[in-house]
C-alpha cells in the first residue's frame, strides 16, 4: 500500500479512537449517525456504483436487519445473537430477492425492486403486532458483554465505538471488493455485460454475489442501528431509503471508492436540517435528485475536484 494511504488510514483510526473525547456531545451524536449511514452508502455503491444495478429495495435489507435485532432482543436473546440474526435475515432476503430480480436487468430490474419494496412495506404495515406498524418497535437498549466488560449501548461513547468498529469492518470488506478481480469484473459487467458473457463470465451469478454482499452490508447497518437506538421501523422498507442511497452515491461519485462516504457525510446533515425546518422537504429531495442526475453525472465531487485542486494534488491522489 502506498504511504499516503497508510498515513490517511492511521489518521482516520486515530480520529475514530479519540473522537468522543475531543468532540462535543452533539457532534459525537451527529457523527455516530453519519458514520452509521456511511455503511449503507457503501453497501449501495457496491450494488449501483460497481454493479450497475439500480435497486429500490435496499431499505428492505436495512429494515430486516433492524427487525431481526429488535425481535431477538425482545425475545431475550443477547445482543451478539441478535446481530447475527439481524444480519442473516438481511442477507438471506437479499439472496432471495436478488435471485428473482436478476432474472431481469436494468429497467425491469429497477421496476421489480420497486414493486417488491412497496409490497414489503404494505405487508409489514398489515402485521402491526410484530412490526409495530408506522411507529415501529422500541425496546430497551441492551448492554454488550465482552468478557469482563459490560458496555451499555445507550452510552454515547459505546455507541460511537460500536459504529466506528462496524464502519471499519464494513469499509474493509468494501475496500477489498473494490480492489479485487471480482470488483473489476463487476465494473466490466456494468460497462458491457454481453461481452463479459462471451469471455466466459457467468454474469448473473456474479451480479447476485454483488447484490448479496450489498444486502449483507445493509444488514450490518440496519442491525447496528437497531441495536444502539433501540428502535426498528417498517418505514425503512420504503423506496425512500434506497433513494437516499442513490443520492449519496451520485453526489459523492458513482462507483468511486470514497464517493458514497463523502456524499453521505455531506447530505445526511443537510437533509436532517431540512426535514427539521421545512416540512415539505421531499420536494427539495426530488429536485436535488433531478439536478444531480443531469448536472453532475460524475457526482458533485467529481465535478468539483478537477476545479478546486491543483494538478499536483490531483496526481498525488490518483496514485
Amino acid at each position, binding site marked *: 500500500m502506498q504511504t499516503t494511504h497508510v498515513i490517511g488510514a492511521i489518521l482516520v483510526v486515530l480520529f475514530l479512537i479519540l473522537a468522543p473525547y475531543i468532540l462535543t456531545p452533539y457532534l459525537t451524536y451527529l457523527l455516530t449517525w453519519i458514520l452509521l449511514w456511511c455503511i449503507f452508502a457503501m453497501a449501495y455503491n457496491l450494488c449501483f456504483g460497481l454493479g450497475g444495478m439500480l435497486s429500490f429495495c435496499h431499505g428492505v435489507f436495512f429494515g430486516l436487519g433492524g427487525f431481526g435485532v429488535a425481535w431477538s432482543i425482545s425475545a431475550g436473546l443477547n445482543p451478539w445473537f441478535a446481530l447475527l440474526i439481524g444480519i442473516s435475515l438481511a442477507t438471506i432476503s437479499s439472496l432471495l430477492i436478488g435471485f428473482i430480480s436478476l432474472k431481469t436487468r436494468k429497467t425491469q430490474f429497477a421496476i421489480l425492486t420497486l414493486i417488491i419494496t412497496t409490497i414489503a412495506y404494505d405487508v409489514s404495515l398489515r402485521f402491526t403486532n410484530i412490526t409495530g406498524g408506522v411507529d415501529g418497535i422500541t425496546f430497551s437498549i441492551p448492554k454488550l458483554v465482552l468478557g469482563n466488560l459490560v458496555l451499555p449501548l445507550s452510552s454515547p461513547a459505546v455507541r460511537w465505538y460500536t459504529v466506528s468498529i462496524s464502519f471499519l469492518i464494513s469499509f474493509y470488506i468494501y475496500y477489498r471488493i473494490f480492489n479485487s*478481480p471480482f470488483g473489476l469484473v463487476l*465494473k*466490466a459487467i456494468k460497462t458491457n455485460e454481453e*461481452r463479459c*458473457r462471451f469471455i466466459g463470465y457467468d454474469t448473473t451469478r456474479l451480479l447476485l454475489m454483488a447484490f448479496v454482499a450489498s444486502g449483507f452490508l445493509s444488514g450490518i447497518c440496519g442491525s447496528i442501528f437497531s441495536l444502539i437506538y433501540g428502535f426498528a421501523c417498517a418505514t425503512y422498507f420504503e423506496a425512500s431509503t434506497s433513494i437516499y442511497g442513490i443520492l449519496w452515491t451520485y453526489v459523492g461519485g458513482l462507483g468511486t471508492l470514497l464517493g458514497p462516504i463523502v456524499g453521505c457525510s455531506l447530505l445526511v446533515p443537510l437533509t436532517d436540517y431540512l426535514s427539521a425546518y421545512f416540512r415539505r422537504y421531499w420536494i427539495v429531495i426530488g429536485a436535488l435528485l433531478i439536478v444531480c442526475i443531469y448536472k453532475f453525472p460524475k457526482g458533485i465531487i467529481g465535478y468539483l475536484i478537477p476545479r478546486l485542486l491543483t494538478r499536483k494534488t490531483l496526481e498525488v491522489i490518483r496514485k
Partner: protein
Amino acid sequence: MKILEVINVTKKFGGLTALDRVNIKLDRGELRGIIGPNGSGKTTLINVISGYLTPTEGKIIFKGEDITALPPHVIARKGIGRAFQLTNIFKSLTVYENIWTACQIKFKYANPFADIKKMKEVEQRVEEILKFIGLSREADRITSECTFGEQRLIEFGIVLGMDPEMLLLDEPTTGLSPQERQPVINLIKNLIGVKTIIIVEHSMDVLAQLGAYVTVLHRGQILAEGPFSDVVKDEKVQRIYLGGG
C-alpha cells in the same frame, strides 16, 4: 478427431430460414473462411456456434462434446472465443483493463478478497498480449478515446486474452483502412496452426493473403467449399456475387 463439427444445423426465425442444413467440419489448427453475400447467414452461423442463438435443428460438437444448447458463457469457458463485428469492447475502461478482464477468466477471479495487484500471472499475460497486438504504450488510455483501428486490435486482444482453442472472427477487417488492416492480417497469420480459426470475411483480399480454405454460404445453405483460389473461380460463386443470386 475434428475439433468442431456443425451437423445439419438449421436456424429459423419465424418464416425466415437463416441457416439450412449446414454441415462444417474443422480440424484442429485449421483456418476456415466463411464468405457469402449479405444475408447469407454468416453471422447467424457464428451466433449459433458461440451460443448466442440455439439452432432450430441440428447439433454442434466441440472437442467431442455437444455444445448445442449451452449458454454463451459456458461455451466460452470451453474454449471458443468470439470476436464481434461491431466493436464490442469495454468503452469506459482502459486498454489494460479490457485485456485484463479477458485474461483474468483463466484464473481465480470470483474471490472478492483477492488482491488484483497481486495477480502476477495475469499481469504477465496482459503484457504479452498488449505486445502481441502492439498497444503496449496505449495501455492506460480509455478505450473510447482510441482510434477505430486500435479498438479493433483491442477486440482481438480480448479474444486472445481468453486463451481460447478456437477463434470466431466476425469481419475483423471491415471498416479499417488498408494501413490499419495489415496489422490485423499479420496477427491472424501468426495464429494459423496455433489456434483453430473461423473467419467471416467480405474482403477477398484478406482471404487471399491468408490462403484460407473457404466455405461459401448462400441463403443459409453451403454453396461451395474449397481452397480460396479454387472457390473464387467457381461459376456458382461468381454468379451470386456478381449476378445477384
